[in-house]
């Protein structure tokens, strides 16, 4: 069994194998290169080392149950994956989401975008030798993940954005945390601009390396920051506005040359825009209908269940701490009014028969969320570009077919062409600037 490049390589050239596990390749991907001394003549990229059968698995899960699998696609911005999937289903069901939940979604997806870009550029800079930049960026990401963690309960596998809304209300002092994260991220961005923008070592490795023209980028189906680095104005948030992005004022940064440096720069500028979006959303978000405080007092669930057998329970029920933020009072802020499509409030499930029936109807096999027959495509702007879901429904509670349009699939498919003619060492910043995410690419 020999691969194409092994068969076609010239006798006098050297074949070198990078990956699938290589210190400078932050993802499991294999690049085989045919070298003339250090110059790359040809290359072959082999992917699939992280293939987990995401699409096949989803066909066997209910619409509600497959949400956690979407966390594991692009694992540095799981909230955007949740959002893409959830909004595709909402498009099929035709349900409206409360305004506050929409703003929460915007804040969360912009936070994810920043953490995505920070991770990408941190890894790229580190692989070029700028370890300080890596540490600075990871520090900024920690502040962002703190906000995410305190609201969603998880740093990476969030499953926070749910069909019809979000799982829980923002945590009580989210404004302070968020402000702190914004201030810290701004500081880090300024420092990184100072460290890298005119840094000769960094410039030599990124300027005019792996230049991609706008036409080639379009022909490869590129989207997101990489497409914009070539000067093409396309952002799903502007072209097909979703949530409340049309009410928010932000710019779409563009590059000029489409080289590694432009891809770095577009990401840096995009983070600034994301911070702007978050700041505006913080101002514009409607007030919650009940104050954001911890509701720890109340009757124990077991007692409430017992008491409800005799008469209607009026007291407040103390929920388990992992349900913090999804108390019954909060539902009208964070979840759609259509009861069929959301998990009923736990207070109802514990104490009255309708709530219990709703709960079982929601989770029972062949009941639950059943979108109408048909097929739908919907996309959001992910960290890497247009993150689209194509879902075919046959009217049952499981998708008949679910396909993910992974943005970095298209980016990485251009790798072979991009590195041709460059030096072996250029693979590293080029690969870093593409932000290949194994979970999303290989699915």
């Amino acid at each position: 069994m020999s691969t194409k490049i092994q068969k076609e390589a010239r006798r006098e050239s050297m074949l070198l194998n990078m990956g699938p596990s290589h210190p400078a390749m932050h993802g499991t991907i294999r690049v085989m290169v045919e070298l003339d001394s250090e110059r790359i003549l040809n290359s072959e990229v082999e992917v699939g080392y992280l293939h987990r059968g995401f699409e096949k698995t989803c066909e066997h899960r209910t619409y509600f149950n497959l949400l956690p699998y979407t966390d594991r696609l692009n694992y540095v911005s799981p909230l955007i994956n949740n959002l893409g999937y959830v909004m595709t289903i909402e498009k099929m069901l035709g349900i409206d989401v409360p305004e506050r939940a929409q703003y929460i979604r915007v804040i969360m997806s912009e936070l994810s975008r920043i953490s995505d870009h920070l991770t990408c550029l941190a890894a790229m800079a580190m692989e070029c030798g700028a370890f300080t930049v890596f540490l600075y960026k990871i520090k900024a990401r920690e502040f962002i993940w703190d906000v995410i963690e305190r609201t969603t309960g998880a740093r990476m596998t969030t499953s926070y954005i749910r069909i019809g809304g979000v799982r829980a209300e923002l945590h009580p002092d989210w404004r302070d945390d968020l402000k702190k994260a914004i201030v810290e991220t701004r500081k880090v961005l300024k420092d990184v601009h100072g460290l890298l923008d005119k840094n000769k070592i960094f410039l030599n490795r990124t300027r005019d390396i792996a230049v991609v023209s706008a036409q080639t980028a379009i022909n490869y189906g590129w989207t997101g920051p990489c497409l914009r680095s070539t000067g093409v104005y396309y952002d799903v948030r502007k072209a097909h506005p979703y949530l409340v992005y049309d009410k928010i004022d932000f710019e779409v940064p563009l590059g000029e040359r489409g080289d590694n440096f432009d891809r770095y720069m577009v990401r840096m500028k995009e983070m600034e825009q994301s911070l702007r979006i978050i700041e505006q959303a913080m101002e514009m978000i409607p007030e919650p209908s009940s104050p954001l405080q911890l509701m720890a007092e109340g009757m124990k669930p077991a007692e409430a269940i017992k008491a409800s057998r005799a008469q209607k329970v009026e007291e407040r029920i103390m929920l388990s701490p992992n349900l913090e933020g999804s108390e019954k009072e909060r539902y009208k802020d964070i979840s759609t009014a259509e009861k069929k499509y959301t998990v009923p409030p736990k207070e109802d499930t514990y104490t009255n028969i309708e709530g219990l029936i709703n709960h079982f109807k929601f989770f029972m096999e062949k009941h639950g969320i059943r979108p109408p027959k048909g097929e739908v495509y919907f996309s959001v702007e992910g960290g890497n570009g247009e993150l689209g879901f194509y879902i075919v429904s046959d009217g049952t509670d499981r998708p008949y077919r679910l396909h993910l349009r992974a943005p970095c699939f298209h980016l990485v498919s251009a790798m072979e062409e991009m590195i041709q003619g460059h030096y072996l060492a250029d693979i590293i910043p080029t690969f870093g600037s593409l932000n290949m995410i194994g979970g999303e690419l290989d699915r």
Partner: protein
Amino acid sequence: MEMEKKKALDDLRKRFSGKIKETFLKFGDEIVIIERDSLLDVVKFLMKEPYSFTMLLDLTCVDHIGQENRFQMVYHLFSLSNNHRLRIKLSLPEKDPVVDSLTSFFKNANWLEREVYDMFGIQFNRHPDLRRLFMYEGFEGYPLRKDYPLRKRQPRIRLRK
């Protein structure tokens, strides 16, 4: 912009009257169902101005097991200048799942078609390098087909030399 969008579908219907089975809207998405042999002509026509569907957003397949035309290819085209998405679908019979390759128009079709070949076993005419993308050489069956069990085991393969 809206005019342009409507025009694309109307012109398509006019130009390929016999080859287009159906055009309709579902959940707000525009869908065109065409004959298998007209794919290259239709795409070539749509790529030109003023329609300029210059981007292949996505390409995938759906397995409708039990139907005579078992496989359904799904193409998502996108026009940047008109901000217009279009879905093109065509059916392939189970016995002869072959369709023309789009690699001559779109470079990302190369990998996308390799993925579909890998997962569904669809053959693509004139594809430069049709082999598995995610799975390895020696993998048996096509995992996204509906008759492939979720937990099927694979035979052991020899180590690569």
